[in-house]
């Protein structure tokens, strides 16, 4: 399962106990319509093993590229070890956009486009 930082995500029904753990111990934000969301208070170190165990599948995080809108995996990022994903702002830049020579102008153009 890939969890996009800064966006809501849904989980299958996993029982009351797991839900309580996710919202109280792990610190996930829950909205009955939108689903779960990672906040700066979320304990990612507990979340990953808990979901792995409950879902019986691997769990990884992704950030959304602000320029192209595609999700970019955190595992392969060179800053994976130093990026505190739960306390950084949600948009990032994917490898493809990063290597472009005009990456920064593209970023500012995109921001201007969104702000208009």
């Amino acid at each position, binding site marked *: 399962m890939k969890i996009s930082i800064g966006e809501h995500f849904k989980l299958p029904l996993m029982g009351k106990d797991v839900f309580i753990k996710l919202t109280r111990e792990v610190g996930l934000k829950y909205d009955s319509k939108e689903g779960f969301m990672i906040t700066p208070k979320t304990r990612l170190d507990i979340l990953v093993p808990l979901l792995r165990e409950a879902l019986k599948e691997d769990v990884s995080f992704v*950030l959304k590229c602000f320029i192209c809108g595609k999700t970019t995996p955190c595992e392969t990022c060179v800053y994976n070890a*130093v990026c505190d994903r739960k306390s950084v702002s949600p948009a990032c830049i994917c490898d493809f956009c990063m290597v472009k020579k005009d990456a920064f102008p593209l970023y500012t153009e995109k921001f201007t486009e969104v702000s208009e």
Partner: protein
Amino acid sequence: MWTEKYRPSSLAMLVGNEEARLGFLKWLKAWKVGGKAALLVGPPGIGKTATVHAVARELSYSIIELNASDIRTKDKLDRALGPSVYNQALIGKSLILLDEVDGIFGRADYGGMDFVMELMENTSVPLVMIANAQDNIKIKKIAHKAETFRFQRIPPRLVELYLRGILAKEGKQLDEKTMQAVVAQSKGDVRSAINDLQAAVLGQLKIEFESSERDRSATISQSFQQLFDASNPADALMALSSAEMDPKGKIETVFSSLVTSSLDVEHLSNALDTVSRADQIIGRIQRTQEWRQLRYFDVMLAMGLFYAIKGCKVQFNDDAIPWDLKLRLWNEAKYFAQIGRTFGSMFGTSRKQFSAVFLPYFAMIITATKDGDQKLERIGIDESVRKVLLKEGKKILEALK
């Protein structure tokens, strides 16, 4: 300074916190008299103040800026802001910016909080507040009544994107590893990343990605030992900056390490002079609440210390009391407590005050007095206590000679 040179000229020139920046732009565009105030919260160096300035520029607002830490009391705030708050015609299209608003609500809050709450409801111009602490109860109270925009640290890749933009404008290059180390070390603080980038480009900072990660996990003692053993000023600065400790703590640790190491008088005097100047900077910052000056603190202390102790061996020690003195204090503490209790009541003062203020003079006088020991015995002082008191008096008299 590149931080000044590349101060963002427009909102689009900032990186990260896209949602918060857009939200603030939308808020100011839509603001009408009677509208909510805005609160921007988040850690330092991530573009809160720059966002306000950029948005104000884009929407042609002039800014009446107050560093709220300077004006903690209701009276001072009222005097500084009064006319602008209630008369829009007088000041034109302006917004009020209260930077570092958490500074108002320290222990010495003399009505500042009430004034801000009142201001939020009655202002005729947009009121924007900036705070670093989000968990402060009073900030939460403000956040409840204001439109709150939460700013988060900038993802490392966006910091790198921003730094690459600067390098392109400067026509400079930096190897991949150093760039990654600068980004990793910044921990999402763009301002500090730009400073490190400039230092790295100018060759004043040599760091490696692997070592920067290692340094982060290094303990405080390791950081300080690296500072004392540094072979060049840049390493000294790196070591001091990596010690995760507040400035006062850094001063105390450097001081205790210096005084407990066997430095010769000249080196010790020069090093203590640096510590003293660093302490003065902190004192000045606390007085004026100009916390921005803190950015010079590490540089000043690390550089000064590097040249002061060059070629000398200083050992990390976070305890300023030398071992022999500590041993004496343990052994004689109960006697000093007894002296304080006995003579404190005789002199009509507390035990603590007698020990702290009168004891040295009393010990000196009684030692210099003829038959001092017998006089003490006559008023019922134990032999062991008398011995300690006379020994102390003797030491003081010798020191005075």
